[in-house]
């Protein structure tokens, strides 16, 4: 299973190969690196998805009958780690970030191209290391959170390999973050002001600040944890005078911002897609920028809401409840702005738009359960249950993964010069949306009624609802097929897209598709208004207007 994943075993001999081989090389071209992140991430998505399939198969029955219990814990640990550190974080940051950010700032590459390639090439070995731990000894069994003392008492080899792998991935993430900050702040084309950047730049700036501030804390924590395991130090081991709750504080100091590291870039990507396909400017650019920075700040001071049932003093619970709830305010601003962007537009109901709107629906649902979870008394009941599992999958899958798909449909013509097939795309969206909601919505009920998370066996009264959820998971697995067929076939047979099929105004579309090395043949375009769509409300283009629209514009109540 893992052998097919070893692109680095095919290291070419020449320094910079051309053609498809450059995607397996130590290329310093930001577009190549972006695609490397994307494809490598997608392979890990398939692995993580297979692990999820194993979990949902086990949960078809209330007894532990599909996997050995130890293996089940390995599977859930690997599923979480792979999906977070090898799929979502690398793809929304490294993948789209590397491809788009140099275009958006008007640069020919990232600020540190070699560091960029190093950051990518840390990922395949780290991923292989993680997966191979299952075959070498046994993979880590303590969940992706690796809480001590459990992580100190489960088999040590797997846990140590897990720590090494996460350290490598964290390093990759930090290198990427530094590179994005430098590129956005320092490589802007002369004349391009910060407040004229496309929104994805702001999202990546905010995300990278979070990466650089919080990932080192995780790295330090995991190093201490590895000392506890190897050298029998007692940092987090209560029987040696350590404190297990300190680990939780340090872990969540990274891992809550990690949610925003996964979600803020998605917010940025949606802000690029919606204006293009609804032919309107992005509504409220300035407030969108401030709300990103608000989320960055608040995101750093909410971590203890993961620990309401640990021994935390009452004042701390109160503070983190209020701080967490208030994240809903900047997030809400973004959602209302997107709704206002759609309102009165000329919305193309293509797959990119459908996935973006699916994202809004799912994320609003996950956000509402999130505000509920922030309330201590509510959380006491559902903490560590399937309610939480449902909630965070609505955020990271219903939120970010939907945006990843929307972005692939949106930027595929830029990367390949060909369009993806729309009917197949809509089938993909339909299967994903229905499957996703069928899989994760019932899990909220399971959690409220007494099913804890990370269990291989459960009360038989939950059997039917678990089977429903597994059916949804099967639909999600099936939804990958039309997508894969579409992506592969369209690369050879898709309709020719032309340079700018969406008539978009952001700089990546103002070059050929696919773009040349160094992005533009001549000088980089200076785009002061990346969202300059739309006609002034007074002037109506008569040639392209229908009677009903004229009537609507004539009616003061209904004027958009």
């Amino acid at each position: 299973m893992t052998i097919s994943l070893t692109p680095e075993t095919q290291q070419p001999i020449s320094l910079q190969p051309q053609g498809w081989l450059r995607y397996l090389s130590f290329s310093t071209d930001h577009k190549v690196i972006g695609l490397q992140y994307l494809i490598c991430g997608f392979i890990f998505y398939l692995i993580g998805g297979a692990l999820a399939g194993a979990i949902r198969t086990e949960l078809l029955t209330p007894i532990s009958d599909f996997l050995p219990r130890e293996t089940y814990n390995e599977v859930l640990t690997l599923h979480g780690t792979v999906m977070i550190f090898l799929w979502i974080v690398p793809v929304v940051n490294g993948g789209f970030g590397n491809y788009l950010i140099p275009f958006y700032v008007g640069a020919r590459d990232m600020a540190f191209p070699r560091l960029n390639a190093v950051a990518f090439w840390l990922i395949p070995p780290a991923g292989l290391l993680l997966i191979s731990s299952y075959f070498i000894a046994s993979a880590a069994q303590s969940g992706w959170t690796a809480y001590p003392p459990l992580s100190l008492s489960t088999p040590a080899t797997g846990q140590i390999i897990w720590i090494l792998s996460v350290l490598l991935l964290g390093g990759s993430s930090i290198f990427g973050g530094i590179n994005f900050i430098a590129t956005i702040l320092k490589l802007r084309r002369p004349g391009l002001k910060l407040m004229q950047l496309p929104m994805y730049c702001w999202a990546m700036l905010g995300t990278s600040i979070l990466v650089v501030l919080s990932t080192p804390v995780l790295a330090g924590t995991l190093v201490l944890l590895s000392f506890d395991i190897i050298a029998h130090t007692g940092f987090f081991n209560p029987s040696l005078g350590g404190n297990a709750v300190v680990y939780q504080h340090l872990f969540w100091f990274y891992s809550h911002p990690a949610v925003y590291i996964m979600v803020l870039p998605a917010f940025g990507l949606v802000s690029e897609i919606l204006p293009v396909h609804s032919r309107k400017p992005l509504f409220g650019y300035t407030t969108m920028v401030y709300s990103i920075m608000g989320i960055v700040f608040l995101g750093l001071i909410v971590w203890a809401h993961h620990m309401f049932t640990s021994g935390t003093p009452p004042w701390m619970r109160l503070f983190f409840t209020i701080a967490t709830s208030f994240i809903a305010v900047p997030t809400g601003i973004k959602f209302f702005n997107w709704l206002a962007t759609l309102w009165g537009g000329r919305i193309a109901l293509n797959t990119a738009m459908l996935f973006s709107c699916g994202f809004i629906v799912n994320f609003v649902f996950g956000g509402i359960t999130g505000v509920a979870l922030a309330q201590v008394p509510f959380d006491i009941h559902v903490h560590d249950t399937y309610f939480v599992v449902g909630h965070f999958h609505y955020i990271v899958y219903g939120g970010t993964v939907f945006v990843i798909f929307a972005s692939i449909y949106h930027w595929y013509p830029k990367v390949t010069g060909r369009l993806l097939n729309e009917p197949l795309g809509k089938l993909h969206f339909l299967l994903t949306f229905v499957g996703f909601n069928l899989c994760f919505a019932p899990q909220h009920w399971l959690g409220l009624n007494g099913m804890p998370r990370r269990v291989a066996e459960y009360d038989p009264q939950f059997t039917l609802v678990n089977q429903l959820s597994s059916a949804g998971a099967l639909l999600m697995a099936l939804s990958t097929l039309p997508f894969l067929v579409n992506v592969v076939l369209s690369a050879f047979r898709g309709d020719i897209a032309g340079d700018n099929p969406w008539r978009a105004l952001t700089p990546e579309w103002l070059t050929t598709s696919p773009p040349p090395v160094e992005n533009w043949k001549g000088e980089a375009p200076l785009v002061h208004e990346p969202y300059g769509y739309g006609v002034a409300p007074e002037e109506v283009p008569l040639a392209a207007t229908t009677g009903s629209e004229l009537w609507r514009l004539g009616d003061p109540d209904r004027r958009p």
Partner: protein
Amino acid sequence: MRIPAAILTLITGMVLVLAGLWVGQNINLLPVDASANAPVYDELFKVLFSIGTILFVGIVGLIVYSLVRFRRREGDQSDGAAIEGNLPLEILWTAIPAVVVLFVGIYSYDIYDRMGGMAPLNDHSMHAMASKEHTWAGISPVSLDQDSGIAPLTVDVTAMQFAFIFHYPNAEITSGELHVPAGQPIALHMQANDVIHAFWVPEFRLKQDVIPGQPTLLSFTATRPGRYPIVCAELCGPYHGGMRSTVIVDEPETFQAWVNQNSPIASASDVTPVQS
């Protein structure tokens, strides 16, 4: 004559709010309530459920309406109106969520207070603190003597891979199941031997991590006689899913009979479960 849009919007909003309130009050997603703080929790749940329904249905409605109403017709190459923002609108949708969130936060603080979460540590645990190591206040350390004047029943809980052991210090009973009388405050002195576990009774709406090295006090008052599951809610190893037990809430007389029957102390009838 056409109905003005403002009135249609107003009516839609009112219907939405009423529907949300109805959903919150009438759709029950929770198991039965069996402890004194469960009805308080359910009250919070209903409020959150109503607010959530209103917001979710409203936003989904807006999206679907926009997608249908403003969809691009075949061959239409025109743009929408170039509206780049609207400051009063931004202020409005900053202020409304802020007010809602603030209300929810203060309300849940009040709920938490009523559940006993904000109460300062009572004498009982202060005593424990002085005598041995620091005892941590659990999620709901209800002031044990303020409630009803009934003395609390103390039970020592030991969580280990993969079982809960319940010990009644006064009656010297050790049991794998938790028996408690309805209506009397219960003080659980919890400790973990190996890894972190969590004590969860869904029908009590109570959960508390049991962390090695942190003896924790959790108190509650059961109200509804019956058998309810005790679930370990923190991943604790391969048999985590099997780490379950039962809490049996009895009428006080039945409970006393159980104590008399099981207590190894000779004159069992003399044993009254009082505080240690």
